[in-house]
C-alpha cells in the first residue's frame, strides 16, 4: 500500500456538508464541518471533500496483485487498507460516508446557490456528475465560492446556464467541437437560403448531409479506437441525434412552421401554505355532540389541505381522513365502531398466530408472505427512534399489523412498499388496532399500485407524461427524445407517495394533504409534475439521458422542499383548471376537471349538497 501523492491546488477548510437526518419530530439539518480541496494526482484532477478529523490524505492506492482499487467517486473509510482481505466494518467516523472524491472529468455541472439578499446563510455548491449523481450539498462558511470556481476553471471550462442562474455547466469540449463542425458545414448559409423556398426537401437533404457528415467524419474522430465503451458510443450517438433534432427545430421555427401547437396556460398564481390545523380549531368545527356536519367536514378538509394538522392532532384527525372514523358520527358512535373493529382485528390476527409450525410446512404461500413481511419489518424506518434497536416491541406491532393485513386481503398479500405506508400510521396511532384500520383505509386508495400486473402504476406514469406535455412541453419533449417518456424514474415517487423522498415528518404532512383529495383526486400527479418542472433546466442542460435522469431523480431524495412542491402543484392545478375548456379531454379526465361530483368534494363523502 502506498500513498498517492497529489498536488493540492486548493484547500478550503470550513466547508460543511449538509446532512438531512430523519429526526423523530422535525427533519433536522445537520452541518458536518470539513475541508474541500482540489487535488492534482497521477490519474487526474479530483474535487474532494473530507469531514473534519479525518485523514485528508486518505486517498490511497491499494496495490494488489490483481490490480488496484481507486476508490474515487465514492466515499471511503479512513482505513482504506482493508480493501479486500479485512472486514471494513471497523470503527468509522459517523460522517465518513459523506466523504467523496470526484474526478473533474466526471463532473457535469454544479448548482451554486447564494443566500438570498438580506437573508442570513452561506453560499452552497452541489456537484452533479455526468452519470446523474448528485453529491452532498457543501456550504462555504468562511468564504465565497469564488476561489473554488476560479481554481476549478484551470482544469475545466465553465459556463453559467442562461436559463437557470444557479446552474454552472462544465462545457464538454467534444460537444462544442461538434457544434462547431455543424456550423462550419452551414457556413455559407446555403441550406437556410434554400430552405425558405422548399422547407421539407431542403431540411431532409440538409439533415441527411449533416447526418452523413457526422457519421463519416465526426464519429470516427470522437470515438477513437478500442478505448471507448459501448455505453459511450451509444451516448455519443444519442447526442448526435439531439443535435440533428435541434437543427430541425430551429429550421422549422425560422420558417415560421410550427408543428406542435402549444397551449398557452395562464400564469401560475401565487399560492401560500397555511399553518397546521390546531386542536382548538379542530374542536371548534365540531357540533356540540362531537360530530361534524357535511359543510364543516368539507371545510376542515380544505384546512388540512392548506396546512396539514398539528402533530398532536394527528392521532385523532387521521382516523377521519382515512375513513376509519366517520365525520357525521358522534365520538360515542365512532367508539362503538372502533370496539367492533377491534374484535375484528383480533379475530383476523388469531387466524395467522394460530398457524402451527407443522401447518406451515404445508402452507408454502403463507410462509413466503411471512418471510417477506419479516424481511421488510426489519428494514423499515429503523433510523427512527420509534423503530430503533433489536427486540423493539414496535417492530413486533408493525409485523402483526402487516401479517393481519395479509389475512384481511389474502388475494393481495404483502407487497413491498406496504411497510412504508404502514410505519407512519403505527407511529402516530401507537397501537395495532387503530394502525391496522387506518392502514386498511389507506390501502383502499393505493391498493391498485400493488397489484400483480402493475397496470395502475403504468397508467399513472402515462397520465403524468400527458400532464407534463401540457404543463412543461419542453421537458416532456426532451424526455421523449431521450427514451425516458415511460417516466419510470418517477416510479418510486408514485408507489409509496414520496415516502423515500422526504423526512418522516414531511411525509406525514404530505400524506395528510393528499388524503383530503383536494383540489382534485390526482393531486399526487401534479406534485410529480411540479417537482419535475423544477428540474427542467438541470436535466436538459446536463444533457441527461435515461440512466442519468433516473440517478438524478433518485439523488433528489431528502433534498426536496415540501412546501415549495405543494404550492407549485396547487398553482399548476389552478392554471389547468382555468383553461379546462381548452385542455384535451384526457387531461380533464386525469384531474377530474369539470366533474362537479369530484372537484371541491373530498371523495368518500356521498353528497355534496
Amino acid at each position: 500500500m502506498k500513498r498517492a501523492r497529489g498536488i493540492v491546488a486548493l484547500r478550503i477548510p470550513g466547508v460543511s456538508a449538509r446532512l438531512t437526518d430523519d429526526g423523530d419530530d422535525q427533519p433536522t439539518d445537520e452541518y458536518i464541518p470539513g475541508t474541500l480541496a482540489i487535488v492534482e494526482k497521477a490519474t487526474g484532477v479530483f474535487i474532494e471533500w473530507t469531514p473534519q478529523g479525518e485523514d485528508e490524505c486518505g486517498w490511497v492506492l491499494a496495490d494488489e496483485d490483481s490490480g488496484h482499487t481507486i476508490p474515487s467517486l465514492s466515499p471511503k473509510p479512513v482505513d482504506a487498507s482493508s480493501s479486500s482481505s479485512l472486514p471494513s466494518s471497523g470503527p468509522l467516523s459517523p460522517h465518513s460516508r459523506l466523504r467523496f472524491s470526484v474526478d473533474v472529468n466526471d463532473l457535469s455541472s454544479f448548482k451554486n446557490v447564494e443566500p438570498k439578499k438580506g437573508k442570513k446563510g452561506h453560499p452552497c455548491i452541489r456537484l452533479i456528475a455526468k452519470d446523474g449523481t448528485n453529491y452532498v450539498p457543501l456550504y462555504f462558511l468562511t468564504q465565497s465560492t469564488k476561489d473554488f470556481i476560479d481554481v476549478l476553471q484551470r482544469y475545466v471550462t465553465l459556463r453559467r446556464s442562461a436559463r437557470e442562474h444557479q446552474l454552472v455547466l462544465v462545457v464538454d469540449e467534444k460537444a462544442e467541437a461538434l457544434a462547431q463542425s455543424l456550423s462550419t458545414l452551414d457556413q455559407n448559409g446555403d441550406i437556410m437560403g434554400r430552405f425558405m423556398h422548399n422547407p421539407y426537401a431542403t431540411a431532409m437533404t440538409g439533415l441527411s448531409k449533416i447526418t452523413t457528415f457526422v457519421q463519416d467524419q465526426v464519429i470516427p474522430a470522437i470515438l477513437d479506437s478500442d478505448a471507448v465503451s459501448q455505453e459511450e458510443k451509444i451516448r455519443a450517438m444519442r447526442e448526435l441525434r439531439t443535435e440533428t433534432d435541434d437543427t430541425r427545430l430551429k429550421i422549422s421555427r425560422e420558417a415560421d412552421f410550427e408543428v406542435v401547437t402549444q397551449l398557452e396556460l395562464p400564469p401560475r398564481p401565487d399560492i401560500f401554505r397555511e399553518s397546521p390545523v390546531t386542536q382548538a380549531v379542530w374542536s371548534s368545527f365540531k357540533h356540540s355532540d362531537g360530530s361534524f356536519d357535511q359543510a364543516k367536514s368539507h371545510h376542515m378538509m380544505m384546512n388540512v389541505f392548506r396546512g396539514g394538522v398539528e402533530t398532536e392532532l394527528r392521532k385523532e384527525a387521521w382516523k377521519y381522513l382515512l375513513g376509519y372514523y366517520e365525520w357525521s358520527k358522534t365520538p360515542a358512535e365512532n367508539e362503538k365502531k372502533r370496539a367492533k373493529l377491534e374484535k375484528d382485528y383480533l379475530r383476523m390476527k388469531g387466524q395467522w398466530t394460530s398457524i402451527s409450525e407443522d401447518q406451515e410446512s404445508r402452507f408454502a404461500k403463507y410462509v413466503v408472505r411471512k418471510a417477506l413481511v419479516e424481511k421488510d419489518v426489519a428494514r423499515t424506518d429503523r433510523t427512527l427512534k420509534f423503530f430503533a434497536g433489536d427486540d423493539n416491541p414496535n417492530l413486533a406491532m408493525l409485523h402483526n399489523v402487516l401479517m393481519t393485513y395479509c389475512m384481511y386481503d389474502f388475494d393481495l398479500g404483502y407487497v413491498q412498499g406496504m411497510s412504508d405506508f404502514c410505519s407512519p400510521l403505527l407511529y402516530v396511532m401507537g397501537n395495532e388496532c387503530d394502525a391496522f384500520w387506518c392502514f386498511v383505509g389507506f390501502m383502499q386508495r393505493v391498493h391498485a399500485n400493488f397489484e400483480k400486473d402493475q397496470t395502475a402504476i403504468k397508467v399513472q406514469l402515462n397520465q403524468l407524461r400527458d400532464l407534463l406535455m401540457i404543463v412543461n412541453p419542453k421537458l416532456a419533449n426532451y424526455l421523449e427524445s431521450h427514451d425516458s417518456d415511460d417516466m419510470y424514474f418517477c416510479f418510486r415517487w408514485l408507489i409509496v407517495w414520496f415516502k423515500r423522498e422526504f423526512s418522516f415528518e414531511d411525509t406525514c404532512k404530505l400524506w395528510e394533504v393528499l388524503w383530503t383529495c383536494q383540489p382534485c383526486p390526482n393531486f399526487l400527479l401534479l406534485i410529480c409534475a411540479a417537482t419535475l418542472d423544477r428540474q427542467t433546466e438541470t436535466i436538459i442542460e446536463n444533457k441527461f439521458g435515461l440512466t442519468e435522469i433516473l440517478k438524478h431523480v433518485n439523488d433528489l431524495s431528502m433534498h426536496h422542499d415540501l412546501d415549495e412542491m405543494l404550492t407549485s402543484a396547487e398553482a399548476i392545478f389552478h392554471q389547468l383548471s382555468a383553461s379546462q375548456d381548452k385542455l384535451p379531454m384526457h387531461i380533464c379526465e386525469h384531474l377530474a376537471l369539470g366533474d362537479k361530483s369530484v372537484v371541491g368534494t373530498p371523495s368518500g363523502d356521498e353528497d355534496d349538497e
Partner: protein
Amino acid sequence: MSGTRRKALLKVIILGDSGVGKTSLMNQYVNRRFSNQYKATIGADFLTKDVMIDDRLVTMQIWDTAGQERFQSLGVAFYRGADCCVLAFDVTNAVSFKSLDSWRDEFLIQASPRDPEHFPFVLLGNKIDMEANRAVSAKRHVTMAQSWCAAKGGMPYYEVSAKEAVNVEAAFQAIARDALARESADTSDFPELENNINLNENNRSSSSGGCNC
C-alpha cells in the same frame, strides 16, 4: 492531468430474491460499508466505482433492483446494455436458490442479448457469515451451487459475505476482468442497440413503450 484518458464503462445488474442482500453487496463493493438498516429497494438505482484493471481504468456501474417479482416488468429498460448479470441468493434461504432459474430467464428475456448462451452471469451466494443458519450444510451447498453453475455453461460461483466483506471485492474484480476481456474480444452483446439509435429517427413513436391507455 490526463484530459484525454478514456474510461471503459461496465454495467452490472444484480438480480435475486428480496432480502438476499443485493443492496448490501453493491454498497460493500462500492463504499466498503455494511449497514443492516438499508431499506427495501424500490425501483432501481446504481452506484459507480472506478477501478484499475490491468492498467485499464474502468468505471463499474452497479445496478441494484427491487427483489419482488411484480416490480420487475417496469424497470427492464435498464437491463439493456448490461455487460454482466450478477445473480444473488442467500445461502441461509433455500427458496432464494430455487428462484435463480427464473431470475436468469427473466434477464435473458428482458435484456435479450445477442448470444444468450454465452452472456456472462456470475452467481453470488451471500450471507456466509451466518454459517450456522445455512439452509443446507455448507459443503452440500457449494456442491449444489456449483453443479447449477456448471449446468448454466460454467457460470462462476462465489461465496461471499456483504456484512463481513468476504470475497465481495474479489468477485466484482473478476466480473470486471471478465467483462473487459469480452469487450476487447469485440463481442458486443447488444449489437442492435446502435442500429436502434439510427432507426429511432423514423420510428420514435412506435418505440415509446406498449402502454395501454
